């Protein structure tokens, strides 16, 4: 009995992180009907950005210069679109942004020297890292996804497939493929009730994931921007006809999605070490969203928890029987069973049929 409770608890905590991964896929799918296969690479990029800020990791000048130049080109390119912005604002802004990026990556932010306490350092570096991840997500959207607006969603999906390889190679070029030690040094909140033991790291992961998850939900359902996102996710053409700038909404959605993936990535890295090969964890979102239903946000939460429990249970009860590695496969078996019974997932939208 204790065993079962322990397994369930661990599963739910990890499941919350998976739910966040699922949420990222779901909001992009709702907004553009495309599946983001580059989720694993977004996850690595987010984690590395946070790592750079938090651990004061610097990179050689020739790599930092490339990044700065890239950001400069991007910003001036985007601002060039608007005739009023041209030259007067676009070039200086681009230069400033490029220089900022170069300095951050070359000199580092010296957070460890500035803030002695690791908690304070985390509180400052966490939002900054997430913001950076969101910005990168938005940049990637601008360059690769925006030109495809109005085309078939399948072309966007294929673009994200290629994007995944490109991003993975870029990360490898900049940070190399060795493992980085990753230790957040958060306050110890290990929970011990009777014979139950929950470690500090998973609890932090669960809490932070749930926090971000609920923040995204509040954003979607309580603000006017969320309303615009929900409207756009139903029909881009209609939204544009009523003055909602669908292109900008898509940008915001990709930004939010990249931000959430970064949270999940940081939490998952905190369980072990950070390295490029970690990207495959992102594909754990696949069973999550398919079980929950591709277009249901609540479904992502339930699906994530189910996958987490399934994994923990497989690890605790099946693997000792000699089936080593079954833990990785179990969610996909669950997925198969769910899809046999409900092809649209557990909570796929009930489509409105007018009679």
């Amino acid at each position, binding site marked *: 009995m204790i065993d079962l409770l322990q397994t369930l608890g661990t599963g739910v905590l990890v499941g919350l992180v998976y739910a966040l991964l699922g949420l990222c896929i779901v909001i992009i799918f709702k907004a553009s009907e495309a599946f983001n296969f580059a989720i694993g690479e977004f996850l690595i990029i987010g984690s590395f950005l946070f790592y750079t800020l938090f651990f004061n990791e610097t990179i050689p000048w020739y790599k930092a210069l490339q990044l700065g130049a890239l950001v400069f080109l991007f910003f001036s390119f985007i601002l060039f679109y608007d005739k009023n912005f041209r030259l007067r604002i676009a070039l200086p802004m681009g230069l400033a942004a490029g220089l900022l990026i170069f300095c951050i990556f070359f000199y580092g932010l010296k957070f460890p020297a500035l803030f002695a306490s690791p908690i304070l350092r985390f509180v400052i570096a966490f939002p900054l890292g997430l913001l950076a991840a969101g910005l990168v997500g938005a940049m990637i959207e601008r360059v690769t996804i925006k030109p495809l*607006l*109005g085309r078939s969603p399948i072309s966007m999906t294929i673009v994200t497939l290629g994007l995944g390889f490109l991003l993975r190679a870029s990360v490898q070029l900049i940070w190399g493929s060795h493992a980085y030690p990753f230790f957040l040094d958060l306050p110890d909140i290990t929970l011990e009730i009777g014979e139950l033991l929950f470690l500090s790291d998973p609890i932090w992961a669960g809490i932070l994931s749930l926090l971000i998850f609920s923040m995204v939900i509040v954003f979607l359902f309580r603000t*006017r921007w969320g*309303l*615009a996102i*929900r*409207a756009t996710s*139903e*029909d*881009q*053409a*209609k*939204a*544009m*006809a*009523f*003055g*909602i*700038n669908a292109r900008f909404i898509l940008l915001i959605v990709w930004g939010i999605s990249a931000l959430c993936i970064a949270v999940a990535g940081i939490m998952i890295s905190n369980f072990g070490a950070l390295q490029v090969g970690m990207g495959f964890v992102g594909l754990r979102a696949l069973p999550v969203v398919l079980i929950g239903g591709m277009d249901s946000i609540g479904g992502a939460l339930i699906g994530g928890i189910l996958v987490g429990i399934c994994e923990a249970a497989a690890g605790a009860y099946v693997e000792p029987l000699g089936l080593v590695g079954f833990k990785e496969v179990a969610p996909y078996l669950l997925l198969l069973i769910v899809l046999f019974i409900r092809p649209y997932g557990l909570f796929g*939208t009930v489509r*409105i049929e*007018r009679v």
Partner: protein
Amino acid sequence: MLAIENLRVVYHDVISVLNGVSLGVMEGEILIIIGANGAGKTTLLRAVSGMIDFYNGDIIEGDIKIEGTSIKGLDCTDIMKRYGVTYVMEDRPVFWYLTIEENLKAASFSRWDKQVRGDIEEVYEYFPVLGHLKNRKAGYASGGEQQMLAIGMALMTKPKILLLDEPSLGLAPLVTEELFDIIKRLNDSGITIVLVEQNAHAALNIGTRGYVFETGRIVLDGKAKELLENQDVREFYLGSGEKERKSYKDAKRYKRRKRWL
């Protein structure tokens, strides 16, 4: 107010839909555009509202001007915000999975300010039935209610020119009549209206001027009352021309005359 000069629009770089259309919309009028399917009426509205990019279309020649400034090639949200042109797409463009009130709020996204709440009440005054159903999902509303909601959403964007694309599509005659009364009231309150319709008789009855489109060209124009009387319009669009069969030769002559005019 709105001037379209020799407009040519091509879809997917090959399908030519509008072949040189010129027309003018005067302030405070109801302009009726009628024509067969595929004549290019919807394309014209898409081009004016800037939605044409989204449908892979291109304006390859001509210009669209509002008060003398060209709006060709601008983004549709820009056109709506700066020039007050709102396009209500055909087939009831409402967001099915949002409630009716959320629909109205979503439509006011481009100009969010303190007055939105008051404007929603104003829309409920125009369409009392929407006020009763405000917490229902729009997808469960009837066709007439959805069309009213679509026009209400357009009102939330504070339009100066309203482009309506077949508001009577799939509605019962009585509902259509009610809808056209409301369109007339909107026009009286100072909104210029461009109305594309298949229901030519009802539309020409409330309109001030009208154009007849055929294969991407304007073949007839005039006062709405005159068009109602016109023999060709009566025969081809109202179905109430002279009943006796015309000779094939004459029909061809009509076509030829229109083409070279």
